[in-house]
């Protein structure tokens, strides 16, 4: 099914209105994904329009990649084809807000920063701190299952989404779940859409569970000299009643990158950042016991003073952005929670062997590790590094995905690794939602 190119913009304009279709090549170049540039950017103003655009594209075999602020467009394999960038930015309304019930329903284009500001007036928040920070949209965060270190205390999108509305390639709007905090009626389609990278349908609206902000917060930096000390410390903290909000372990290159510092001699090799939250008696006890726990394994610690702490956290969460000006490889490994230190240690050894730079930020207790690799010789060893690191992660019982490629390596190997023996079911699932294969074709696991 081919379409005369000239009629596409006018047909799209008929659906969404004049001002919301852009076909200017320069603007389209900015919406590129995996090296492919779309011919049109369409920005509908409502959910019905999103559904209509999807139906039009399905009928005319135009490949679509949905997007919010574009902070996660580097994720996934390069698309096999790409005609329309479908921007959800105008879907930024609050549809339903019941502060007293701790629930909210928002459009997918709502920016996380705007949402937090809105909720802040009532002392509430949506406790997710994914990369992309304040500009990431709710739809994008859910579609990519983005999370940050706050996951330690609050879980991920799958734990906080009560329901959603999704536009399908048939041009329909379907709902899953609802806006009450407990609901088992029907299949949980929200789980399926979360982390589907826009390959099944387009999330247009989501109902979220909200939480009160902690009364106070404090960040402690502990400096274990070795991975063994880091592991002992992590065990002590997680086996204690302290219940931190966030906890990350950084290697030396990660912390110096974070502080924009050079690599001064004598810097400690590892830093364990621990943020605790609660009323002041809780914070006081945490302070006392964190220092004590550090001391018991021979580790020094200090408290970071606000607002510097919050600033550092913001940069740290946006880990992939730390390499914006570099040609770097960014990897994310998901692991059994207690294997993070071991994985980082293995990665560091590998990087030393291959003479490349490696910055690592791992979330012990959650089981997520982010690695940034760069250096002059990286191009020649990158493929081997990915293969080795993926094997290391899989041997530890986890997986590894490539979050950002080197420029020259775009698309030469698989971003995702294996999805195991359920990949056929996933293909069938894709065929149910997107029989013509127009949604982000080829970007997902197994070439879905």
């Amino acid at each position, binding site marked *: 099914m081919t379409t005369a190119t000239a009629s596409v913009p006018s047909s799209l304009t008929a659906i969404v209105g004049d001002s919301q279709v852009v076909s200017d090549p320069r603007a389209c170049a900015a919406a590129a994904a995996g090296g492919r540039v779309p011919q049109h950017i369409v920005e509908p103003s409502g959910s019905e329009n999103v559904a209509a655009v999807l139906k039009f594209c399905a009928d005319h075999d135009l490949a679509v990649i949905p997007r919010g602020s574009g902070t996660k467009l580097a994720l996934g394999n390069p698309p096999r084809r790409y005609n329309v960038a479908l921007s959800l930015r105008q879907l930024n309304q609050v549809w339903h807000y019941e502060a*007293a019930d701790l629930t909210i329903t928002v459009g997918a284009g709502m920016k996380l920063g705007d949402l937090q500001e809105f909720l802040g007036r009532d002392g509430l928040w949506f406790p997710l701190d994914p990369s992309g920070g304040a500009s990431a949209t709710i739809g994008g965060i859910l579609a990519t299952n983005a999370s940050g270190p706050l996951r330690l205390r609050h879980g991920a999108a799958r734990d906080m989404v009560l329901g959603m509305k999704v536009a399908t390639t048939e041009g329909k709007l379907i709902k899953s779940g609802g806006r*009450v905090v407990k609901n088992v009626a029907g299949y949980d*389609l929200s789980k399926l859409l979360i982390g589907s990278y826009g390959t099944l349908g387009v999330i247009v609206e989501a109902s979220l569970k909200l939480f009160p902000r902690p009364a106070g917060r404090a960040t402690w930096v502990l400096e274990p000299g070795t991975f063994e000390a880091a592991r002992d410390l992590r065990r002590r903290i997680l086996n204690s009643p302290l219940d931190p909000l966030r906890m990350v372990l950084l290697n030396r290159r990660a912390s110096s990158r974070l502080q924009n510092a050079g690599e001064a001699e004598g810097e400690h090799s590892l830093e364990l950042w621990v943020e605790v939250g609660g009323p002041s008696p809780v914070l006081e006890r945490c302070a006392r016991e964190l220092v004590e726990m550090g001391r018991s394994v021979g580790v020094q610690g200090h408290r970071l003073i606000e607002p510097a702490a919050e600033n550092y956290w913001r940069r740290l969460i946006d880990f992939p952005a730390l390499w914006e000006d570099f040609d770097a490889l960014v990897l994310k490994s998901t692991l059994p*929670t207690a294997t993070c230190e071991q994985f980082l240690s293995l990665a560091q050894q590998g990087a030393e062997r291959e003479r490349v730079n490696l910055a690592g930020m791992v979330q012990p207790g959650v089981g997520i590790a982010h690695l940034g690799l760069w250096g002059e010789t990286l191009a020649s060893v990158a493929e081997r590094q990915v293969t080795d690191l993926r094997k290391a992660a899989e041997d530890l019982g986890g997986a590894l995905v490539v979050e950002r490629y080197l420029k020259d390596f775009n698309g030469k190997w698989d971003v995702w690794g294996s999805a195991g023996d359920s990949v056929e079911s996933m293909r069938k699932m894709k065929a*149910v939602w997107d029989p013509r294969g127009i949604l982000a074709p080829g970007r997902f696991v197994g070439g879905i």
Partner: protein
Amino acid sequence: MKLTAMVRELERLLGREAVLWRPEDLMLYEYDGLSSLRAPDVVVFPRNTEDVVRIVKFAASERLVVVPRGAGTGLSGGSVPWQGGILLAFARMKDILEIDLENQRARVQPGVVNLDLSLAVSDAGYYYAPDPSSQKACTLGGNVAENAGGPHTLLYGVTTNHVLGLEVVLPNGEVIHTGGKFWDAPGYDLTGVFVGSEGTLGIVTEITVRLLRKAEAVATLLAVYDRILDATRTVAALTARGITPAALEMIDGFTLRAIEEATHAGYPMDSAAVLLLEVEGMREAVEENALHIESVCQENKARYVRRAKSSEERDLFWKGRKNAFGALGRISPSYYVQDGVIPRTRLPEMLEFIEQVGANYGVKIGNIFHAGDGNLHPIILFDPRDEDESRRVRAAAGEILAKCIDMGGSITGEHGVGLEKINLMPFLFSDDDLEMMRKIKAVFNPEERFNPGKVLPTSKMCGELRANVSPGGVL
């Protein structure tokens, strides 16, 4: 296929001791917590995944229906074999396969009893958080099928928030693995789809769950009220102030009197309602929250608030709650439990509505429920031999659930749709919503070989239901 041939073949595949077929043996398997319709043709007891695959392949070759069953404690008819066929009972698949405390994970067979998992890791200081009231009997496989809840899921989340990976047998005998020991396995979150699918997509043969560390401190409070309205207002006020107890249960006066007579939990016989509240966590946080809760209860006219002084007293408070259904069973030949959910701000209005419905239909309704997450369990007492009363009970229940839908809520918070609420689905979901769910079912279970006729009404049924009746009339 003739029954004798079916039995002979299953006995050959699994051994004689793994198959039940005599009518007197099958009687036990014709009902769950909801109803009794008909017995299965045979009951089989696999010991491992290979046995399940054998059974499923045999069923596929003979075009037989397979219905999985844990302990049969479900309340929506999810494991009732209403079309006969093979009932696959998990009583012999009850091994805890792996406990990995360092990673806070356990891998279990589906027949493991919920409480047994917590007991197995208790000495090391861990537990499995979802705690359905039937946790002494119900199985983790059944919990996964129903996405079971429980009082403490208010703070810690329901089953789906604690399950990371599954092994599933599909109707063609294929075995797939979803998720794993870690979060965010690459690919679609099929684990999240299987949890709560009520045995209609695949048969789960292995489950990987998260274990939590026990809290350092716990405070259990009993707040006593002279008016139901004040109790429901307390719940709304606590939520609005962002105080999330680990559990927040409400019991109305009628129900607590029945409980008190049966268990002597120490609930005051003359009160209109009690709230059972529990806060957990760090000592300092627990103290602060307990004081906060006490003052919110007082502000909302609690007669008094009592804090359990010992673990014995705490157990006693909970004993009453957990044995409530049994206590009501002592005073009524039967009862019908509802599972609606509403926004917590609407609780005061809803409880008045329920009282009105009871009066209108001339039926007695007790309320004992997870107030903190707005998950109602109105319990309507009746005598099933009285046909007119049974009809009025169903009508009253339908009206309550219709009101839940009206308030933007749900028809089920933790018990599932099963057979029971299938006719209400068209009032909660549109044809397009349900059509997508049917397609998803067809991905895994295209011929409805597994647990047929549950969860999703046929499209023909939807039109007829909506055309002819209001949601109040279809239960």
